[in-house]
């Protein structure tokens, strides 16, 4: 990533989109919209002082909504470019409210609320589409109750939970427990505020609130407005503190998730959604189970699948190693339903095809291996660039020309073409680069011919 940012031959146009493509192989005219960041790219040092002070919290897309970021943000800590961006949908200032705290904080004077989108034109020989894929939305499968049961997560969410730089710093904290902890934090803030108000009154009347309240209820201060206010404040304080103590007691019992279920083919190999195999998800479930067990040695994982597809170099060995060394059990069977048991534990109902029995099993957390879905907006992009899509909305290619689109001079690589893992994406990328280079150098040769 760093190499891309630093390479003298690469002009990095992040936060940008293609607006228009005209012409043909060897001679495309491309119009690009550079979206306003409201931060001057050449001034911003990426220090993050603005983000620290910004009062607006927005669900963090990089962390799959498992944490918050500010309205001024860098997409992720090591992101290239490190230039910060103001989110125009959430920034107070850009929505007509008073703020501008980031501008006051920024030492580099990089904030510019007046910045506008810029349109640039490029002369291009060939185009490579590498727009990637989307995570299949598992809430389309109602029987898995994703979003309804907090401890049913997607594999990409689980990646963020595993990450040391993620929202849980690599601990397998369960979403249901994290929700309680967030509630505790919010209540603690409230309690602190109301305690402060009570402190003042206690000082004024030189009496602890509880003792006063006993007398107040016995009718001692009838008609005393000040004391009525105190009594009201005290009762509302108790209404915060009591549930807070209860939640705190509950939280003492929280442990990390140690019984994990991984459910394969969520949206893949399913005729209601995508009949194809997404290829990489069997492997990432094994990977996630191995890493989870490295983080917490007592972790046991069950991977539910019709079969485990481990067909790359070193993949079968990886699968076996996971079973031998990382407490992974592979169960052949398709999961019919997930329900919620006691303590927010997901319960998996499945048919064990070896024993021909329907079984229920309780877990601490369930991870859904979601399908590789075509990326949102690919239809617009395909239309703009001028290429055809296949029946699933991946970029159409031929079986003997896997990086050639339907239009000469336009190539494709990675998951924009079809589901594939990283090694395959890299191989296709080099292949597409080779095809594009032919065109780049051809026009050079033609120019030389013209001169001669």
């Amino acid at each position, binding site marked *: *990533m760093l*190499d*891309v*940012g630093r390479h*003298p*031959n*690469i*002009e990095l*146009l*992040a*936060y*940008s*989109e*293609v607006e228009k493509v005209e012409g043909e192989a060897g*001679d*495309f005219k491309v119009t*690009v919209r550079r979206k306003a*960041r409201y931060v001057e790219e050449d001034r911003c040092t990426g220090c993050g002082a603005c983000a620290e002070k910004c009062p607006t919290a927005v669900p963090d897309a990089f962390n799959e909504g498992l944490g918050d970021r500010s309205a001024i943000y*860098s*997409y*992720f800590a*090591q992101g290239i470019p490190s*230039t910060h961006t103001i989110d125009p949908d959430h920034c107070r200032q850009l929505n007509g409210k008073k703020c501008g705290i980031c501008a006051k904080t920024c030492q580099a004077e990089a904030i510019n609320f007046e910045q506008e989108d810029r349109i640039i034109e490029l002369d*291009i*020989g*060939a*185009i*490579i*589409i*590498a727009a*990637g*894929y989307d995570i299949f939305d598992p809430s389309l499968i109602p029987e898995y109750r994703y979003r309804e049961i907090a401890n049913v997560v997607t594999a990409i969410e689980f990646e*963020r939970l595993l*990450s040391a730089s*993620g929202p849980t710093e690599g601990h397998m904290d369960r979403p249901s427990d994290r929700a309680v902890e967030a509630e505790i934090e919010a209540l603690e803030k409230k309690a602190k505020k109301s305690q402060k108000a009570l402190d003042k009154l206690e000082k004024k009347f030189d009496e602890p609130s509880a003792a006063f309240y006993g007398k107040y209820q016995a009718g001692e201060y009838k008609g005393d407005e000040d004391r009525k206010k105190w009594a009201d404040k005290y009762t509302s304080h108790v209404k915060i503190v009591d549930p807070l103590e209860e939640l705190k007691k509950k939280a003492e019992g929280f442990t990390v998730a140690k019984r994990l279920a991984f459910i394969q083919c969520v949206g893949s190999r399913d005729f209601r959604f995508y009949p194809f195999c997404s290829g990489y998800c069997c*492997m*990432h479930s094994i*990977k996630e189970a*191995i*890493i989870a067990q490295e983080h917490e040695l007592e972790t046991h994982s069950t991977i539910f699948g019709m079969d485990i597809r481990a067909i790359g*170099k070193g*993949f079968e*060995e*990886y699968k076996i190693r996971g079973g031998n060394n990382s407490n992974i059990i592979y169960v052949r069977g398709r999961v019919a339903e997930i329900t919620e048991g006691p303590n927010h534990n997901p319960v998996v109902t499945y048919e064990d095809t070896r024993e021909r029995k329907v079984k229920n099993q309780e877990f601490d957390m369930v991870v859904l291996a979601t399908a590789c879905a075509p990326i949102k907006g690919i239809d617009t*992009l395909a239309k703009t*660039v001028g290429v055809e899509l296949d029946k699933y909305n991946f970029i159409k290619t031929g079986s003997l020309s896997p990086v050639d689109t339907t239009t000469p001079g336009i190539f494709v*690589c*990675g*998951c924009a073409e079809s589901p594939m893992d*990283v090694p395959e994406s*890299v191989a296709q*990328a080099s292949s597409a*680069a080779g095809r*594009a*280079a032919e065109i*780049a*150098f051809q*026009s*050079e040769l033609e*120019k030389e011919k013209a001169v001669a």
Partner: protein
Amino acid sequence: MSKDILVIGGGIAGMQSSLDLADMGIKVHLIEKLPSIGGKMAQLDKTFPTNDCAI
């Protein structure tokens, strides 16, 4: 001079194409819709089957 190449998408695939072309001496314009490049791979903790760090 050779013609410039446009790469749309700054995930692992787009980054690899860009680097290959740039190393051949070809000028590349890499377009990414999000504020930073990296794509899905940047979100991964580690990658199979070697468990190397993703970024």
